[in-house]
C-alpha cells in the first residue's frame, strides 16, 4: 500500500491499518525527502518510530534534559525504564503530531511480521491527543497573547516571601531558560518541548509567584499586514525595514517586506528583500526564488516598456 499524502493523509493511513489490524513497516516521507520516518505497526498499533523515538534519540533527549550524562555511572541506561519509556512516548507523540499535519510527501506500507517494540500507541488515541493538544493550545494562546508573552522572574521580595512550591525537572529547565527576552514560543523551541506543555508550566509558575509575564511587544507583522491590505505600502515597508534591521533572521518579515516593496512599485528592492528571505529561511528557498524571478520579470518588462 502506498500513495501521496495530499491524496490520503497519514491520519487516514494509520486508521486504516488500525481497523484492519495490520502489521508491517510504514515509511513516511514528508516535505523534506532527505529524512524519511519509519513506523513499525503491529496489529494496527504503533510499536516503534525511527529516528525520533529510537534508542539513540532517547539517550540524546535524556542528556539534553539533564537527566543523564555521557558518563556511564549516570548514563541514560541507569535511569528506570518507566522514566526512559515515558520520554520515548513523548518524543514519539510529538513527532507523530507533526507528521499528522503533513500534506506533502508520500507513504509506503510493507506488510510483514513485526515484533513488539518499545511503544504502544493507538492511532485513534493519538489523533484524539493531537486534537486535545490543539484545543489546549488555543486556550493557552488566548491567555498568553498567542505565546508572545515574555516570562520573567517575579521581584525578589515576592519570590522570597511566597509559599514553598514543588518543582519538577521541566520547571527547573524552564526557569533556567527564562531570560526576560524570549517569549513563550521561543522558550518552548529552546527547550524542545511542546508549546502547550511549556505554556501550561509558565501559567503554573506564574500562579506560584515565581514568574510574571511582561507585555508582549507589538506584533510588527500584524501591523504591516494591515498596512499592506490598506494599500499603505510605504508604512508597511518602514515597519518591516525596522523589524529586519533588529532581527535579520526573521524570514517572514523579509517576505512581507518584498510584498510591500512590490506594492509600492519598487521591484529592485523587492528582489533584495526576497533574496534576504531565501538566506534567512532556507526551508522556503523555492518560494523565495519564484518570487524573485517574478520581480525580475517585472523589472525587465518595465525597462522594455520604457525603452
Amino acid at each position, binding site marked *: 500500500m502506498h500513495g501521496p499524502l495530499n491524496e490520503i493523509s497519514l491520519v487516514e493511513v494509520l486508521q486504516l491499518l488500525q481497523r484492519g489490524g495490520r502489521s508491517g513497516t510504514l515509511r513516511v516521507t514528508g516535505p523534506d525527502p532527505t529524512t524519511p520516518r519509519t513506523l513499525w505497526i503491529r496489529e494496527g498499533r504503533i510499536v516503534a518510530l525511527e529516528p525520533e523515538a529510537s534508542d539513540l534519540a532517547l539517550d540524546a533527549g535524556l542528556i539534553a*534534559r*539533564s*537527566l*543523564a*550524562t*555521557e*558518563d556511564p*555511572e*549516570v548514563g541514560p541506561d*541507569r*535511569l*528506570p525504564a*518507566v*522514566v526512559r519509556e515515558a520520554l520515548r512516548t513523548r518524543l514519539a507523540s510529538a513527532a507523530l503530531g507533526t507528521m499528522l499535519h503533513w500534506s506533502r510527501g508520500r507513504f509506503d506500507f510493507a506488510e510483514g511480521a513485526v515484533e513488539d517494540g518499545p511503544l504502544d500507541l493507538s492511532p485513534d488515541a493519538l489523533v484524539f491527543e493531537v486534537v486535545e493538544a490543539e484545543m489546549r493550545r488555543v486556550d493557552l494562546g488566548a491567555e498568553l497573547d498567542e505565546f508572545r508573552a515574555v516570562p520573567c*522572574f517575579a521581584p*525578589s*521580595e515576592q*519570590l*522570597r*516571601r*511566597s509559599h*514553598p*512550591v*514543588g*518543582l*519538577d*525537572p521541566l520547571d*527547573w*529547565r524552564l*526557569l*533556567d531558560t527564562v*531570560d526576560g527576552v524570549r517569549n513563550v514560543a521561543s522558550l518552548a523551541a529552546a527547550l524542545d518541548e511542546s508549546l502547550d506543555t511549556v505554556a501550561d508550566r509558565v501559567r503554573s509558575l506564574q500562579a506560584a509567584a*515565581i514568574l510574571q509575564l511582561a507585555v508582549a511587544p507589538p506584533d510588527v507583522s500584524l501591523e504591516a499586514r494591515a498596512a499592506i491590505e490598506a494599500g499603505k505600502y510605504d508604512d508597511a515597508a518602514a515597519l518591516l525595514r525596522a523589524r529586519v534591521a533588529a532581527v535579520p533572521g526573521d524570514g517572514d518579515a523579509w517576505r512581507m517586506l518584498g510584498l510591500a516593496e512590490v506594492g509600492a512599485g519598487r521591484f529592485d528592492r523587492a528582489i533584495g528583500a526576497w533574496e534576504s528571505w531565501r538566506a534567512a529561511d532556507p526551508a522556503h528557498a523555492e518560494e523565495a526564488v519564484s518570487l524573485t524571478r517574478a520581480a525580475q520579470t517585472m523589472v525587465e518588462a518595465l525597462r522594455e516598456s520604457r525603452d
Partner: protein
Amino acid sequence: MTAPRPGDAAVVAALAERLAAADATTLANLGWFAARRGATSAALDATRRAVALPSAPRSAWHNLERLAAGRTDRLLLALSAHDSALAAGPSAQHPLAAAVASHAEGALAVAEACYLAAITSGEDEVAAWNGLAVLHEERGERAAADAAWARVAAWESAAVVHDCALAWHRRGETARARGFLKASLPRFPGSAVLLQLAGYLAHIDGASAAAVPLLTASLAADGTLARAHFTLGLAHERLGAHTLAVEATRRGLQCSPWFVPEVWLLDNGRGGDPIEIPPERSAGTAEATDEVLLALGRSLLETTRLGEALVVFDQVLVRQPSHTAALFHRGVVLAKLRRYADALADWERVGSTDSEGMLGAMSRRHAHSARELAALFAVA
C-alpha cells in the same frame, strides 16, 4: 555553561530562601539551577544541604562531586522522589564515594561534610572515620585527627593501619610509625601496602638493609606496586647493590613513570582497591621521581652502563635544567665517555650554581682536570 546574567544572583538567593526547608530533590535541583546561573557558591550550598538529607537523590551526589571539583558542566537534574528511588536503587546513595572524590580533588570542606554524612548514615563507618582522620591530618588539626584515629584503631583494616602509621611518620614520629607497623603486620599477613610502607619507613630511617626483605615481601604479594619497586631500587642503591637497584627501578618504571612514595589509602565503599591520594600532590611526586632517577643513573654509572645513565640524567634535566646533582653526574658520565668539553660545561654550571656546596667543590676539581684533558685531546 552560561555566564551569569544580570539579576541572577538575586533570583538564586530569593529562591534559595523560599526553598530553604524543601526536600532533598528540590534542593538538589536548586543547586543545578544556581550552577547554571553562575552562582557556584549557592549551588554548592544547596547541593550540600540536599545530600545531608535522608533520601538524597543520586544526582545530588553526582553534582556535589563535580561542584567540589570546580566543575559546573554535566550536572544532573533530580527526578521526583519516587522516580529517584527507582533510579537509584538501594546502593546508589554514596556519601562516602562523594567524600573520597571531593577529598581527592582537594575540596576538603565538601569532603568533611560528606564524611560526616556517611558516618551519620552508618554506611562504611570505619572508612569514613579513616578519611576524616586523614583530612584532619592534612589540615594539621591534630586533636581532631587523634580523636578520629581513636575511633578506628580497633578495626581490622589494613588501610586504617597504613594511614595511621603514615600520619605518625608525617608528624616526624617515624620510629613510632615503624613500631606500630611492626606490631600490626602479623594481623595483615601478605598486605603489600603495609609491607611497602614498613620498608619505605625503614629505608628513610637509615635501615635500608631491613627495608629490602620487607619490600621484597611486598612485591611478592603485589608485583605491580610501583612504589615498592622504586623504594627497593633506592634501598639497593644505598647498599651498593647497583645491579639490583637498576633492576628494581626499571621494574618500577614499567609500572609507573612517577614515584609516589607516600599515599593515603581511602576506601570509597564501592569495592575494589582503596583510592590513593598523595599528600603532596604533584610537586612532591616530581621530586621523589627525580630522586629515583638519580639513584638509577648512579647505579647505571657504577655498573658502567654509561649510555643508559646519560639518558636517565638527561631525563631529570629536561624537567629541572639546573638540577645540580643531575648536572654533576652527567658530567661524570660525559667525562667517562671522553666528551670532556661537554663534561666541563656541566661541571662549570654546577660550580657556578652550587659554589658553596660539596658538589660545587668537586665540580671545580673535575672541571680543572677536564680542561686539561680537553686541551690534550683537542691537540691530538
